[in-house]
């Protein structure tokens, strides 16, 4: 909490580095990009370390009246801070992931990634509605170029679809924002969070925001841009798309739609649950029959994000905390899985599952990491996926036992498609000659896998480190939603604990402390 404008600094460093990258050759561009993202990561860690848990809701706030009508206002709460840390953590890994596979127009590529980092941090740190919108929409430009220039065969179709789909969602939100600013007379997010919009207005505002966030998330049935974008984007593009950009949608749910329009949120709970339930089952089944690895993981992302939306709309502490942990966990794990695909794609230049098989024999280290992330994606206890899914499903159960029932099938189906993928790629006979010739991980790939694996395990074993900064914010949102909250069908009642239950200080005990209080 020193006077250092740490958030502005985190935005300025990649911005300056991006400009520098445009004017240099490939090699220095890579170094500049890596250096800048690492510095930003260090600043991100500093942010996390200096975050005062239980302190003010908004920390590291900065404000400058630069734009007249709206402000350069930055600040983070626990949720935004964790998402910023996630972004800065993934960025250097993305740069490393494209170290060798990107050979053309490296300067522009690195510049686009650095711009993306600026925008991601900006989205999570913005405390002004218009500033948020500018960052939120701005992400279209670098992602459009990344998919279109360095993408696969059908990259142009995918780039257009991504751009127009997400733009169409967002513009409706812009009109809603104008109406909100007019009604509340301010663009400051902390003020708007506590402003009570008239209930009938909330309905319209909620729908407009929903159009934008649902596309960004993406929710069924507006998810169709995602498989195309993922399949065509370069590896690092997919990593950042799945890792962070999808979280912008769920962040929008938590930051705007739930606390700003609590009545409308309660009114549309059924819609969110229904869409999430369909998404979990439908996209899992679709994932099961994919022959393209990236497409499979893309569909699994849609299924995981559906559990996030359902968890958020459970309107209780566990549901929202679980959703947040899934967001972070999915950010790490799906990025890692896309990198798993990238590693073998770099060697064989195909994403066809049937072209591989038996990799466990000649790439044991790779098989190990792939196994870990597969398990984390399924939600095996001890990995990050378990914590998030357990918590959010427990929360969903309180709100609607049917939704919980259907969403839980997603875990089973998730195990099915992920294990099936793993079996076909890694196990089996090593028969194909070109696959036999594939070398195991090189040091650069180790350097990417190790941090990802460490975080996935850390989050699975001791999630309290990640939950602690966010708990206060979740409590605030739950309190804000409480008056509008519909009664759940589970009728959870408090248990009758034996006298003086042993105080267990382990992480999950902490995380569940609100369980059964209803």
């Amino acid at each position, binding site marked *: 909490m020193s006077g250092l404008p740490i958030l502005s600094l985190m935005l300025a460093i990649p911005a300056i580095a991006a400009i520098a990258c445009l004017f240099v050759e490939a090699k220095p561009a890579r170094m500049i990009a890596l250096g800048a993202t690492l510095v930003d990561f260090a600043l991100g860690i500093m942010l996390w370390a200096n975050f005062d848990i239980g302190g003010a809701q908004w920390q590291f706030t900065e404000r400058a009246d630069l734009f007249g009508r709206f402000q350069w206002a930055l600040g983070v709460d626990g949720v935004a801070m964790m998402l910023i840390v996630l972004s800065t953590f993934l960025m250097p890994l993305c740069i490393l992931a494209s170290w060798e596979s990107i050979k053309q127009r490296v300067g522009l590529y690195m510049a686009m990634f650095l711009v993306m980092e600026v925008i991601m941090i900006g989205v999570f740190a913005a405390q002004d509605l218009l500033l948020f919108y500018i960052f939120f929409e*701005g992400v279209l*430009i670098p992602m459009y170029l990344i998919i279109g220039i360095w993408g696969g065969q059908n990259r142009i179709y995918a780039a257009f679809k991504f751009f127009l789909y997400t733009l169409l969602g967002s*513009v409706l939100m812009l009109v809603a924002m104008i109406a909100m600013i007019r009604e509340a007379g301010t663009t400051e997010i902390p003020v708007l969070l506590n402003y009570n919009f008239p209930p009938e207005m909330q309905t319209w505002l909620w729908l407009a925001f929903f159009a934008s966030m649902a596309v960004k998330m993406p929710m069924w049935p507006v998810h169709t841009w995602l498989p195309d974008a993922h399949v065509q984007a370069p590896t690092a593009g997919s990593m950042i798309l799945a890792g962070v950009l999808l979280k912008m949608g769920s962040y929008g749910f938590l930051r705007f739609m739930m606390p700003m329009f609590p009545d409308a949120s309660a009114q549309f709970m059924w819609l969110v649950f229904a869409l999430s339930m369909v998404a979990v089952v439908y996209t899992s089944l679709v994932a099961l029959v994919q022959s393209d690895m990236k497409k499979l993981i893309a569909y699994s992302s849609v299924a995981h994000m559906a559990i996030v939306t359902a968890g958020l709309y459970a309107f209780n502490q566990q549901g929202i905390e679980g959703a947040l942990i899934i967001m972070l966990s999915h950010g790490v794990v799906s990025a890692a899985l896309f990198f798993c695909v990238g590693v073998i794609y770099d060697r064989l230049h195909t994403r066809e599952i049937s072209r591989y098989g038996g990799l466990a024999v000649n790439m044991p280290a790779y098989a190990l990491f792939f196994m870990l992330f597969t398990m984390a994606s399924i939600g095996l206890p001890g990995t990050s996926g378990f914590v998030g899914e357990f918590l959010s499903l427990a929360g969903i159960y309180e709100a609607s036992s049917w939704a919980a029932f259907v969403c839980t099938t997603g875990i089973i189906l998730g195990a099915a498609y992920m294990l099936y993928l793993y079996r076909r790629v890694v196990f089996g006979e090593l028969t194909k000659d070109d696959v036999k010739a594939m070398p195991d991980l090189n040091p650069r790939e180790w350097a990417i896998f190790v941090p990802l694996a460490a975080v996935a395990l850390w989050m699975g074993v001791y999630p309290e480190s990640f939950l602690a900064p966010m708990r206060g914010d979740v409590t605030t949102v739950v309190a804000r939603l409480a008056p509008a909250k519909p009664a759940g069908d589970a009728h959870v009642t408090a248990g009758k604990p034996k006298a003086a239950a042993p105080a267990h200080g382990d992480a999950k005990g902490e995380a569940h402390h609100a369980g059964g209080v209803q």
Partner: protein
Amino acid sequence: MTADLALVWPELILTIGGLITLMLGAFAGDRQVGLYQLAALLTLAAAAVAVAALFGTEASVFSGTLAVDGFGGFAKLLIYAASFVCIAIAPRYFGEAMRAEYSALIVFAALGMGIMASSRDLMTLYVGLELNSLASYVLASFMRNDDRSSEAGLKYFVLGALASGILLFGISLLYGFSGTTDFAGVATAMAGGVNIGLLFGIVFVVAGLAFKISAVPFHMWTPDVYEGAPTPVTTFFASAPKVAAMTLLTRVLIDAMGPAGPALAAWQQIIIFLSLASIILGAVGAIGQKNIKRLLAYSSINNVGFMLIGLAAGTQQGVEAVLTYLLVYVVTTIGAFLFVMQLRDADGRMVESIPAYAGLSKRQPGLAAAMAVFLFSLAAIPPLFGFWPKYLVFEAAVNAGLVPLAVAGVVVSVIGAFYYIAIIKTMYFDEEPETVIRNGGSRVEGAVIGVSALWLSVIGYLFIPMLAAAAASAASVLF
């Protein structure tokens, strides 16, 4: 009378300067490009200084037919600046064909536009408009030996004359039913109720002016004239006259018909129709275009539609939004047309076909990046500055209760985004073709492109307080 003359310095300077330029051309010969160009540029600069010196003065001169105020001043500065650039870029384009008339005609057109922007009487309105139009007809066919250019001039003239006729008919109706040509007098008559005659007057006047801003359904001439006219002239048509006609329309609607009262309901629905029709047709019509100048013509139709959203609000906020929009639009348009002028094929001919831009970002990274900025800005994708004026017009519309109009506008803007990003796709994603395109631009042009691209990137946001203050003081004159 003499006192009035002291308040119209900008117009006097332009008149005299234009005549001097013409004389220089006649006596020094057409070869002295630098000489008469300099005269024209100095004239425009001096007129701009005179406008700036008159800021803060609010007066009505020549028996109330011409206004000297901040609103006109804002428009005039923009018009003179755009004309200045259009003269400066011309010689290299025309080469041997450059003649003194070009500079003189632009100066006279600027004079006409200045009168349009400050007219307070239906007669001065018409005189200013015709002065500008006559100069424009000649400019469109400036390349006498070029079929396309002659065709453009003829087409512009015929349709322009028709529009002038419609406008005059409307003016005569307004005069007949209100008994005066003075804006304030017409407004007084309107306040007492809009009868059928006045209503027809409004419709015809707006239709005549809609031709000048090329709003749908009076836009047909735009793609052909933009394509056929020499590129510097097209740059001119797309920038300065748009400002003049839009400010004129604003003044007529707000001053002569009133921002409130019975007339508002009458003209508001016309403007809403024009605006939606322009946005939709401008967006859809551009999709199939292969020629960049035609495409930019549709883009200008589309942009005019967005400006009309602000005007439809009929509030001071709406007018401020229109003025801001005009400024940003002029910068973007000039930048985009300058980009078009940079590219030449091996024989030195202009490259106007969009597919020929394939792979441009590899050969001309700076130029392609600047064009990408212009296009994303026209598509109003933040963080580029083109987002801001669009936000302002939507805000004005929502605040005036026109939410469905704003929603329709934003949804159609997505269609518009499609063709802008399609050009970026050609420049950035497509493979290089066989044909070689080289950069045939001068350093000055490069600098103008660079500065406008920089301003339209995030830097523009820092100017919002300044722009807002200028637009507010200009718009407050009308309310």
